[in-house]
């Protein structure tokens, strides 16, 4: 396989041709904020957080852009910050925080992003939180779904569909009301737990009994 050489934040990296910026960055311990990216899946490109600047001109998604030879990638310009910081703040304002009881506490991708961007909680107070807390929903015979925490990244949907070929769950409704729901086939969910493991924020909660 052909090798390429390019830079991220001034540091030079060698990579295989065909690798995305995100893949190379994560392999080399350079963090780029992301919620819908999972190494095992096709990049959804829907969380819009992994914006990086390429060759001092374009802003692109790191998860969907192939690294090219001599490319200059920057992950932390003021423009990128201005674009994605409000998006992260939107997610936090909408996210129901009960971190201490959350199964994802400590390995939550959103916590990681907040720490990475040094999110100022006072700015979030300027936003309007959701008016109602929604009840937990039964997704499959084995799983609860917490719509208050879900970021609608689609990782669980893709996991069920692409990895297990099952497609028990999918998006329903539109706009702000969009959420994950199950098809009738979910009765046949064999509880492989892959969607639970891959969920970035701990939305899928296995039923204990």
């Amino acid at each position, binding site marked *: 396989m052909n090798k390429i050489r390019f830079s991220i934040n001034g540091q030079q990296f060698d990579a295989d041709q065909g690798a995305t910026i995100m893949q190379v960055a994560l392999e080399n311990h350079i963090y780029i904020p992301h919620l819908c990216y999972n190494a095992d899946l096709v990049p959804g490109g829907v969380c*819009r957080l992994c914006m990086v600047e390429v060759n001092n001109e374009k802003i692109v998604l790191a998860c969907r852009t192939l690294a090219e030879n001599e490319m200059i990638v920057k992950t932390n310009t003021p423009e990128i910050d201005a*674009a994605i910081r409000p998006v992260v703040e939107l997610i936090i304002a909408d996210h129901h925080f009960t971190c201490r009881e959350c199964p994802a506490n400590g390995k939550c991708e959103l916590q990681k992003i907040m720490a990475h961007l040094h999110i100022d909680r006072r700015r979030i107070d300027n936003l309007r939180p959701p008016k109602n807390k929604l009840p937990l929903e039964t997704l499959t015979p084995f799983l609860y779904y917490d719509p208050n925490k879900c970021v609608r990244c689609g990782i669980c949907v893709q996991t069920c569909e692409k990895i297990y070929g099952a497609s028990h769950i999918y998006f329903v409704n539109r706009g702000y009301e969009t959420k994950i729901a199950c098809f009738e086939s979910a009765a046949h969910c064999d509880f492989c737990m892959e969607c639970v493991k891959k969920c970035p924020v701990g939305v899928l909660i296995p039923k204990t009994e």
Partner: protein
Amino acid sequence: MITADFRAKAEKEWQKITNPSIPQIFIGMATCGEAAGALSIYKSIESTLMKNHIEARIHKTGCLGMCYCEPMVDIIKPGQPRITYRNLEPETAAELITDYLVNNNYRTDLALGAWGEAIDGIPNLFEIDFLKYQERTALKNIGVINPEDISQYIARGGYKGFEKALCTQQDEIIDEVEKSGLRGLGGAGFPTGFKWKECRKTESYPKYLICNADEGDPGAYMDRSLLESDPHSVLEGMLIAAYAIGCSRGFIYIRDEYPLAIKRVRTAIEQMGQYELLGENILDSGFNFDIEIREGAGAFVCGEESALLASIEGNRGMPRHRPPYPAESGLWGKPTDINNVKTLANIPAIITNGAEWFADRGTGSSKGTAIFALTGKVANRGLIEVPMGITLRKIIFDIGGGIPNGKEFKAVQTGGPSGGCLPAELLELPIAFDSLAVAGSIMGSGGMVVLDEDTCMVDVARFFLDFAKQESCGQCIPCRLGTKQMFDILDDITKGKGRQTDIDMLLELSESVAHTSLCGLGRTAPNPVLTTLRYFQNEYEAHINHKRCHANVCRLLVEEGNIDE
């Protein structure tokens, strides 16, 4: 070719209608006419004719685009010009039939205009303000012909463009469209010829052609009127595009909320089949093409071309990442050309009359005409086709007749939820793709809503964000949460709960949502907020700081404001 015989026959039939031996009555029966009561007018006229033993022929036409005059009826009496009557009711329609057809009284009081010279106190229809400044090319047949009769379309020069195209090299057709400067009239304004060229270049088969008739902007109904009143102009445009690009299968994606448009397009497609204008070896040219109707299920976002593709494929209507563009990989991964209804309706005339004829009108980078649905607080509401470069003032005050009830003009909203509100200072702005973009709005698909002094601009922004919030596909986070958050903030402001930080917050969110969203819906959703903040920031400040709504629209604000104090 459509046989000379058939064209001659159609023309002769048309002669019999325009220069008849018995009275010809035309009733405007598009959705707008029917909503205004055209069905009861039809019944009333039918029974009056029977009662008085008058032999006459009734034609159902589409709409002439003059919504403020509906229901409308045209009458051609032998030896007389076609006369258009306005705002009829079943009783006045019955009187009109007896008075005019039996007693030779023109009923000047009910008349709007005569087609041609003014007669007996009835002005020339095309000299009245609403029509005088218009240049109808794509709309030339609306309200004139029966949309369910292909021979009337053919008699008025229909399918001549397609016949000419069949005798032309495909690349030459595309060159002609490119030279004409025609840009997509669905909203984005992408050069049509370039799109065709890209799709033709892609070496993958089959290729598909899609007509996007999923019109959804609030207050916009250009595509509906065009499909209901003259479906063949759009279908002929599709034939030419398909031939030029090399598409073998076409779809027309119409929203399900337009049942009459769907019915008329279906009828039109059947008639095309009868005259060998669809199917295999069309008019013995060796060109094969078929058109299918696909009905949209009510999602606004499916008007976004990549979401539309997903919808036709049977998937959830969610936009896709671009590139690849549909011209390279569209429907089922095949090269696909997607054009709006109005864009396609312009094609036959461009091919018939040539690129120079089309490019003669308009401005530097916006050629030809623009079609708008002029609505809101304006005296003459309706569908208009005007040359690009015309000023907003001319549209609103000359064609539209100004603001009714002696009110002041406040703003005009163009481009629907993706567009913006332009204030009185910009009334001299020439309408063109670029000038509107500079002003913060967009040309959009053609919605033009006039707002008067009784409109609260914060409330307008709130309305459009409410729309965007509900119609976002929910896929990407900035659009899904950003439109909701902006709506919540605007909603609070209109209820007297605005905060000092809100204006900055709205600006920041707008920038972020516009830059990070996946598709055009999210990227343009902040425009109503940005333009109202740019031109009417004082209203936001009055709401937030003084709990006052200048237009007295936000009533809750006043009450709650008083309680707070």
